């Protein structure tokens, strides 16, 4: 065993990797060796810490000091000052926006204070490519407990008692799903993991797989034992190369240790897991399409019933759970359902991971107890909206979900509260919007996505989403009519009930919820041909106020298409036929003489 006095954890999640964290590791190891510190200070590559907005992230233990925005050029200073002489490099230490003091430990940061990490418990704590570190954090102990001290029925009962609900979007009780599959008769059964994560802006599942792949493998083996299956498949998109690579390493290590394979822990239970790479189609996240895709066919959904628990992969009883759902399982079995049910609200137990994105300071990954309010997530954990702008709405559930308007910011985040206000939990994408976002444009954005991603098998979805998108396009171009709103509502309600699968059935949600809370904004576009947020370019024009223009010429110089002309020291004008409405002139005018 090696004993170091300090461990330096460097985030190698997708975000930090693209801002050069692997090079930071190389450079740090080189500099440690040059200073004779290589036997004292160990560099550890980890998964995501969550504070992606401030990456690359480096955390030094035992102090627990978090360095943010670390550049390659900072490494020398960190090594020579902190590691050699014990002097913390203050300018790089994470602090809260509103606090002049540096946070002496990662635990004191506002970003982490309200969080509770169950699914993300090991992310940023361990090296995901080292099974020993997972084992040190009680890894595979839950599997051992199940195999040696519990019957399959007891495992299912414990999961049912925990009231864990699926984190992939629909929120179906996991215990009940397992129980159905256990009751299905069949010589062969399958356990599948949904790591397709097609919701734009979501990166929860990816981060769990990158930061703690073994927790998912362990949970799948537990599920296999519970339902009587010996084979698992993880369906993951090929666009997640780091997650795929770490899963491959994890599976190989687990097999080497005998934690996957034949006769696990000397019992007669055997379980194996294989990866199946998807091509990144949203519809392949839908359970029946996913299974068809694993079978090697074109990913198209089919009607249910029969449900996969009866007839799934290759016609055999199958369970499919989401990555985050699985990540909760080992903890539930180790600490007990009674512990798990103390967390969360009456009908939504445990925590939920959210990928915070959009107009928010702390873009990143957060895990909070169910029932935390949107306000706490946005203002306290998320650090508020950049540039002092006003919060307008948040979109949960991505293209299948809805928006939560500012007046409902105190809504507790759980399955039922969100459904009640026309939004949904979804898989955990949480996109924050401020006063500069146009809600019609947002609805159009999501519809564009569903039009692209519709598989085309059923006409309500194939044709219906296209028609809805056309109407939204018309409205944002200033050609909308009042009757369009009725037409939209009519289409929405029809597609909701007539589409074959969840993709089509939920595609109208972004329209329905924006219509519900922001109808006035639609009417402004239709009646007054105005986009109040100033996003829809066709409804916009930039005008120079002649009495305020001093004729400095800055706007004319900045205009990328040469649409502004005028004599020096006299009022300039914008040629509307040339203007592309980029807004540069307005942002550069020192006299605020340009209006929109």
């Amino acid at each position, binding site marked *: *065993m*090696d*004993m*170091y*006095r*300090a*461990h330096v*954890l460097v985030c190698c999640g997708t975000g930090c990797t693209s801002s050069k964290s692997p090079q930071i590791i190389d450079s740090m190891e080189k500099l440690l060796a040059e200073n004779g510190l290589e036997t*004292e200070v160990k560099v550890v590559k980890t998964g995501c810490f969550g504070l992606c907005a401030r990456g690359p992230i480096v955390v030094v*233990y*035992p*102090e*627990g000091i978090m360095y943010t925005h670390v550049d390659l050029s900072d490494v020398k200073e960190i090594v020579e000052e902190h*590691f*050699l*002489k*014990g*002097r913390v490099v203050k300018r790089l230490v994470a602090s809260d926006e509103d606090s002049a003091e540096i946070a002496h*430990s990662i*635990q004191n940061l506002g970003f982490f204070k309200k969080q509770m990490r169950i699914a993300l418990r090991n992310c940023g*704590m*361990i090296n995901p490519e080292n099974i*020993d*570190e997972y*084992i*040190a954090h*009680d*890894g*595979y*102990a839950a599997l*051992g*407990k199940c195999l*040696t001290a519990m019957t399959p029925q007891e495992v299912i009962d414990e999961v049912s008692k925990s009231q864990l609900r699926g984190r992939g979007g629909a929120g179906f009780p996991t215990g009940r799903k397992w129980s159905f599959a256990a009751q299905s008769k069949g010589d062969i059964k399958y356990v599948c993991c949904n790591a397709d994560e097609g919701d734009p802006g979501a990166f929860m599942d990816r981060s769990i797989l990158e930061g703690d792949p073994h927790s998912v493998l362990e949970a799948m083996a537990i599920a296999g034992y519970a339902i009587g299956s010996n084979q698992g498949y993880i369906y993951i998109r090929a666009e997640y190369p780091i997650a795929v690579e770490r899963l491959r390493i994890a599976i190989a290590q687990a097999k080497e*240790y*005998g*934690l996957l394979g034949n*006769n696990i*822990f*000397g019992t007669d239970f055997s379980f194996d897991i294989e990866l199946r790479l998807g091509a990144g189609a949203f519809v392949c996240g839908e359970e029946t399409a996913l299974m068809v895709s694993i079978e090697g066919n074109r990913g198209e959904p089919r009607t249910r019933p029969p449900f996969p628990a009866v007839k799934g992969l290759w016609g055999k009883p199958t369970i499919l759970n989401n990555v985050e759902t699985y990540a909760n399982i080992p903890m539930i079995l180790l600490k007990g359902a009674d512990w798990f049910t103390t967390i969360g609200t009456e009908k939504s137990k445990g925590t939920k991971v959210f990928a915070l994105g959009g107009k928010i300071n702390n873009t990143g990954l957060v895990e909070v107890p169910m029932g935390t309010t949107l306000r706490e997530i946005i203002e306290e954990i998320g650090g508020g909206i950049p540039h002092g702008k006003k919060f307008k709405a948040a979109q949960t559930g991505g293209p299948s979900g809805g928006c939560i308007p500012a007046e409902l910011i105190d809504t507790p985040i759980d399955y039922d509260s969100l459904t009640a206000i026309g939004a949904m939990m979804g898989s955990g994408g949480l996109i924050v919007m401020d006063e500069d976002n146009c809600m019609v444009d947002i609805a159009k954005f999501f519809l564009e996505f569903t039009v692209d991603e519709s598989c085309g098998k059923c006409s309500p979805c194939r044709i219906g989403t296209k028609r809805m998108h056309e109407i939204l396009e018309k409205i944002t171009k200033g050609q909308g009519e009042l009757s369009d709103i009725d037409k939209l509502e009519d289409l929405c309600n029809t597609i909701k009930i007539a589409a074959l699968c969840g993709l089509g059935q939920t595609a109208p949600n972004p329209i329905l919820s924006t219509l519900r809370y922001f109808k006035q904004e639609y009417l402004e576009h239709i009646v007054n041909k105005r986009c109040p947020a100033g996003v829809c370019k066709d409804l916009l024009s930039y005008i120079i106020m002649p009495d305020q223009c001093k004729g400095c010429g800055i706007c004319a110089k900045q205009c990328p298409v040469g649409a502004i002309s005028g004599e020096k020291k006299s009022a300039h004008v914008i040629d509307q036929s040339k203007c592309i409405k980029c807004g540069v002139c307005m942002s550069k005018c020192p006299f605020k003489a340009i209006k929109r």
Partner: protein
Amino acid sequence: MKSLSELQELKEKTLQEINLRMQNGGTKIVVCMGTCGIAAGARETMRAIVAELKNKNVNYASVLLSGCDGNCEEEPVVKVIEPTGEETVYVHVDTEGGKRIVNEHVIAHKVVDGMTR
């Protein structure tokens, strides 16, 4: 791996290695590592402390460095901070002294004779 006890063994072994990430508030041994400390042999002292902790399988203490705190003539200076916050300052600590701090103070909970100010 064929049994739970093998898993437990591996867990404990690795835990010792990564315990210092847990921030579970064990004893802190702070070695002053200013230029003055380094010149007086603080690095060797610090290494001896880390090695002794490993020899004795101590996993509830962590070794931290700090800058000079102004008493350069007393270097190498080592402070032991108990989880309670109680602080003991040792001066002129050589490698032997470092080992004594681990054995007598950290393990046996007795202040080391003749090494305090």
